[in-house]
């Protein structure tokens, strides 16, 4: 692997540009490079691993028990990348991609354009918004944020720590905090009790998947050490008098209960991070089971735009193991498309990978059904900020939706939601679902934000720093 430090180290073009150095991106880049392609791997973090294997090459934690063996397995993937011929650009922002496969990248305030013959987007997942009242208060963060602090800096939240929400990551974080000797005070479980009814039909597949043993170990370890409050149906967070936050929650028809917390860690599943794909013009589709939009892609990860593949959790939430395997498939397909092997050779190499995907995949539907967050927690509460950046409440969304606003893009014009620095990453699904609910239609009919580059904020100075040819200047200068 060649580590690039700044944009001036970049070539003007590469065979393959991979965005994101998580399990899928590392696997795609390593695979493509193994077939002799010139590969650039661009990542926002300073070391490879993505979120799931965050800081895998430099975590200060030595006790492997804390993060668990599933985390340490990431080391092998990072080692394969280190041993490969991939050009790796860390600490970089990818702010542009178009159908001509031209990327706009920035590092440390300097920007450059790079062209690819194939683009592989492995932008991963982000945590689903949790738009309850008070989710913007200091002291309230996502479970994933606390996990990042644990992995990258060896930090644990101190004092009364309350986890609230649903989904595998919530339980994983709880078990890691237990293993670190700092069990959380309580878990407020918002998993709808009725989900079991829908999940049970997918149970046989789950029984035969590797997730069963893992899940049981996790749940037992947490339940032994942590107070779990099941069946939470209402949740709000208020500023506390003597603590960061006070949780106010309901369990069904029971009267409101209160709990003081120094840290509140929220989580209700993950969804694909679609911003770059969306801005590039890749078609999205709505998944009712996973309650999110995802880029349309085929069995190789090819999107609706020729030359752009999307892989890993960025295209469909399926977990780290499947993400790495699908990343490998995208790498193989790039090698095939760029003439390094024929389709027959590609298919032969892909067959055992697909077989492994299938063993994990048969456990997924159960998890998706069991941990599907309730409508109540996906739709914004009246007093909750649906859009954190522009501070738009659930009530405002509903009032404006009632005027007949057809979709999220019109909502932008009315309320500015989605127009702040996060560019809809933390409000997109909330706004879509609120409009859909108001109109009584499916989010599929409402559609998602139409995003445009730059997909991350950059300064005009950064754009001005880009190398330009005489013809570029001639194009804009008045003679």
């Amino acid at each position, binding site marked *: 692997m060649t580590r690039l430090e700044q944009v001036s180290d970049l070539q003007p073009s590469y065979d393959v540009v991979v965005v994101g150095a998580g399990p899928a991106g590392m696997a795609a880049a390593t695979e493509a490079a193994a077939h002799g392609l010139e590969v650039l791997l661009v990542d*926002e*973090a*300073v070391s490879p691993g993505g*979120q799931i294997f965050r*800081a895998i090459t*430099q*975590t*200060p*934690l*030595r*006790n492997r028990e*804390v993060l668990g063996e599933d985390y340490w397995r990431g080391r092998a993937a990072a080692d394969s990348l280190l041993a490969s011929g991939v050009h790796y650009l860390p*600490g970089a922002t990818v702010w542009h991609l178009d159908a001509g496969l031209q990327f706009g990248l920035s590092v440390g*305030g300097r920007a450059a354009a790079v062209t690819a013959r194939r683009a592989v987007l492995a932008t991963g997942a*982000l*945590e689903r918004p949790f738009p309850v009242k008070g*989710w*913007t*208060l*200091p*002291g*309230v*963060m*996502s479970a*994933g*944020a*606390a996990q*990042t*602090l644990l992995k*990258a*800096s*060896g*930090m*644990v*939240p*101190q*004092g009364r720590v309350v986890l609230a929400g649903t989904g595998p990551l919530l339980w994983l974080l709880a078990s890691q905090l237990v293993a*670190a*000797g*700092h069990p959380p005070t309580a878990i407020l479980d918002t998993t709808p009790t009725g989900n079991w009814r829908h999940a049970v039909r997918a149970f046989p597949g789950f029984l035969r998947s590797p997730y069963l043993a893992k899940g049981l170990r996790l749940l037992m370890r947490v339940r032994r050490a942590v107070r779990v409050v099941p069946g939470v149906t209402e949740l709000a967070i208020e500023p506390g008098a003597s603590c*960061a936050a006070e949780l106010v929650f309901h369990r069904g028809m029971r009267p409101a209960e209160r709990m003081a917390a*120094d840290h509140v860690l929220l989580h209700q599943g993950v969804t694909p*991070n679609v911003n770059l794909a969306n801005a590039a013009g890749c078609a999205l589709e709505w998944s009712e089971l996973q309650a999110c939009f995802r880029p349309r892609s085929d069995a190789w990860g090819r999107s609706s735009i020729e030359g752009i593949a999307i892989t890993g959790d960025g295209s469909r939430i399926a977990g780290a193991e499947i993400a790495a395997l699908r990343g490998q498939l995208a790498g193989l397909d790039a090698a095939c498309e760029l003439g390094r092997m024929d389709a027959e050779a590609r298919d032969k190499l892909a067959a055992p990978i697909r077989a492994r995907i299938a063993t994990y995949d048969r456990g997924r539907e159960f998890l998706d059904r069991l941990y599907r967050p309730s409508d109540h927690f996906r739709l914004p509460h009246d007093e909750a900020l649906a859009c*954190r*950046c*522009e*501070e738009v409440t659930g009530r405002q969304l509903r009032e404006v939706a009632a005027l007949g606003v057809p979709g999220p893009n019109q909502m932008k014009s009315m309320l500015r939601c989605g127009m*702040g*620095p*996060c560019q809809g*990453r*933390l409000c997109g699904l909330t706004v879509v679902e609120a409009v859909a609910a108001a109109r009584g239609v499916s989010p599929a009919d409402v559609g998602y934000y139409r995003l445009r580059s730059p997909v991350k*904020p950059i300064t005009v100075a950064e754009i001005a720093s880009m190398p330009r040819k005489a013809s570029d200047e001639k194009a804009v200068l008045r003679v």
Partner: protein
Amino acid sequence: MFQRLPEACDSASRTSIHFTLDGLPAEGFAGDTVAAALLALGRDTCRQTAVSGSPRGPYCMMGVCFDCLVVIDGVGNRQGCLVPLREGMVVETQAGKREIGR
């Protein structure tokens, strides 16, 4: 406040990083991002919002939410969770929107 596990603050294996936070001397470790270092110092608020001036702190720690925005070495609107802490860095909490020219 966030606390470092004993193995994560062993000064023999980890390098201390000195920086200033709103003009006062502060310390973190190599491998910390600016946002992580602030949280370890008990700072759960790092900015006031541009719209209403309400306090915010890091929410996602992965570059998505933009609630950890701080001024670093005179440049505003930097995502504290993505910027590695460096020796001698000048970090300031950000009040409202980024000032023109900063």
